[in-house]
């Protein structure tokens, strides 16, 4: 029996320990905010925060995160008012929105680690997250806004 804490709640799993965390979250725990975009750690759509680090849930097995604390987009802030989420809305970042949970989680992890990232640091840290709609200019502006206070 594998135990994990997701958004503050204890969850357990007694199936395949190799099951990617992504599918545990989406299909078993019903937390569909975390998205599937590639399954190969190439796009960042599945980004969640494990302890304090951004992690690609599609290549992380449930066993790898046993006993650890996982935060998904649903748990980032109780009212959805994390500074990154607020900045995203202020800048009207999303187009289709499908990549945005992963982008927001990546940005939140970046700001935990580096509260005032430079332009280049933002571009580098966010480059693992693809946005096929092409919202990059606004994502960059929103991360900057979140880091300077919304």
């Amino acid at each position, binding site marked *: 029996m594998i135990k994990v804490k997701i958004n503050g709640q204890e969850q357990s799993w007694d199936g395949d320990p190799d099951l990617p965390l992504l599918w545990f979250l989406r299909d078993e725990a019903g937390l569909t905010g975390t998205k599937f975009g590639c399954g190969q750690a190439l*796009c960042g759509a599945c980004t969640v925060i494990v302890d304090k680090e951004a992690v690609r849930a599609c290549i992380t097995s449930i066993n790898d995160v046993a006993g650890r604390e996982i935060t998904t987009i649903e748990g980032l802030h109780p009212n959805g008012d994390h500074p990154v989420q607020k900045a995203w809305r202020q800048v*009207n970042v999303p187009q289709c929105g*499908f990549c945005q949970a992963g982008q927001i989680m990546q940005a939140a992890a970046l700001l935990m680690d580096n509260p005032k990232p430079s332009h280049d640091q933002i571009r580098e840290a966010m480059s693992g997250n693809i946005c096929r709609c092409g919202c990059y200019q606004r994502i960059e502006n929103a991360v900057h806004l979140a880091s300077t206070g919304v």
Partner: protein
Amino acid sequence: MNFIDNPEKLRGFEKNVRVEKVSRRSILKGLGITGGFVLAAPVMSRQAFAYETGADKMPHGVVVDPRVFVAVAPDGTVTILAHRAEMGTGVRTSLPLIVAEEMEADWSRVKVQQAHGDEVKFGNQDTDGSRSTRHYLIPMRQIGASARTMLEQAAAKRWGVPATEVKAVNHEVVHSATSRKLGFGELAADAAKESVPSIEGLKLKDPKDFRYLGKGQISIVDLHDITTGKARYGADVRLPGMKYAVIARPPVTGGKLVSFDPDAALKVPGVEKVMQVRGWPWPSKFQPLGGVAVIARNTGAAIKGRDALKLTWDDGANGKYDSVAYRKELEEASRKPGLVVRQEGDADAALKGADKIVVGEYYLPHLAHVSMEPPVAVADVKGDKAEIWAPVQSPGGTREDVAKTLGIPEGNVTVNVTLLGGGFGRKSKCDFALEAALLSKELGAPVKVQWTREDDVRHDFLHTVSVERIEAGLDKSGKVIAWRHRSVAPSIASTFAAGAKHEAPFELGMGLVDMPFEIANISCENPEAAAFTRIGWFRSVSNIPRAFAVQSMVGEIAHATGRDQKETLLALIGTPRIVKPAVKDMWNYGEPFDSYPIDTARLRKVVELVAEKGEWGRQVPKGHGLGIAVHRSFVSYIATIVEVAVDDKGKLTVPRVDTAIDCGTYVNPERIASQIEGAAIMGLSLAKYGEITFKDGKVQQKNFDDFQVLRMDESPLVTNVYIVPPGPDTPPSGAGEPGVPPFAPALMNAIFAATGKRIRNLPLGKQLEA
């Protein structure tokens, strides 16, 4: 992105599908809106009205009935149906916003509800071709004005005053002479009893009184849900007892399953079943490819199970498709005469007599859509009833196809449209929903079919592959006196019927025969090309290779004559005039030429605007270069300037992009800007990396590692967007797609300015490093 000249021809092969829909109209009841709404009455009427767009010529046309689209609850909440699919353009907000504007509803008290697929009830729902605002600006205003009129009439009756004395203002009806007011909620029950006014008699608002339209102050309705993970896409649908499926499909289009061994797959924990999926012989429009499905308790188990399958395929007739060899065939075809599709003057003679001939042969490979959300659908089939939840651009078409595939009446199929995690034309084709329907029927349980990214890349309806060859003849003064453009590319029509060898009018009309230059001798030709894979609409379609070729050629002519790119471009566009190409069955994005002519004054204007705002001719540092391109598509006019920087190792960066768009009357300039910003990213993606290749009939790419798209660290540092203010009578035109075509040629013209290297073969890849 689905605009066959006569879409009905390709949508459903059997005409009886339509007949059946029409006859069912009389028994339709129960609207999309349920609950305590009172303005939604179960009555349907269709009023004929002559629109200046092609809206009423689309399958199932336009429905203007406030009782279908609007509901007012006693508490004043106004619910407006969004009948088009949201894939990132903002249409789910824009169209209801138009209704709210015209009915004087307060947007903060409006709820948007997504309509299911039912074109008899809602009119055409095919969300593609950059048509939604263009076709629905006026109908949505009429719906809003009808609802407003009914509310005003109800208030006037209640007060016993003439309707001309009352006026709806911000969610209330006011009688100013007596300072009386009634809220929309208080009037709803009475308003529902009023008859629907005739369209002709409606009084639309004066645009100067608009509170929302044209302002760009309203955020998309899904913004909060998207930022909190609550927004529901196709993949997020969960039903009780639902099974999860992934499918192994034939690696070659048109291939067939020979045998399979499910044993190892069945041993994977969580896998419950392995079953065959019916496939249709190629070409089969949007029918499934067939294969073997693995059914499991979650998607992860299904994928692992599929990896363990042992499969043998017969590759069939397309097993020899090879991109390298095929490209040679296309190039050779482009060097020989082909079917003449536009002829003015005598291009052959003029080329022979020319002082100088500039020749360019441009290649654009197949492209995959790779919308961020791979195809996915949920189906629940019970007996002769089916319910679908899917991110589809065409819910009406999906409903028809599900009914046909399952052999059940269309009225028994409900298609619920989720949000689309990107579409770009891929999700106009509902094969993934049909797969889910077939599996659910056989399993007797709800099923979600999830495509992996590998499935998406390998089994897409790809953008065509093309060679565009242009020969421009110049006289002694450098003036272009002859233009011969040969376009060779397999047609989208090949996905619908075997043996299509020439491009369809709707493809020829995207930048080939509608070429707007003022040249005395023009010949446009279309040599034959056969298809060996599924070809489909990709955001802006044939405009991509055409604009790339034509606008690169402008840069080549500028170089050959030693003139400025922008001046060369304006000289070729020529005098302000309406261009009337000598073309039989000329296709104009389905729009009448009277209201949407090819207007070179507007074309010139976007060039001049972008040149001014984008500081054309500015001094740039060494290694930098500026390029410009303009293109008319989806009846909009767009010009782009790209600045590039190429370092001494050939590494490319894009410091700045400027784009000017004239899309006529617009609803939400903020979303237009986001579409254009995104188009620059997609344009740079395809120019830099976009290439799907085939060997032995199989796609050689699989995921974002070998089919790359642009990431943030290589995206333009700044993209500026300028929107031309519309004239009072300029009808709306497209905004979702037109940003893409001018980008690649502007980029290549800029690269030439920076390096002296002319890139004629896309993608750029490592060509600058050589």
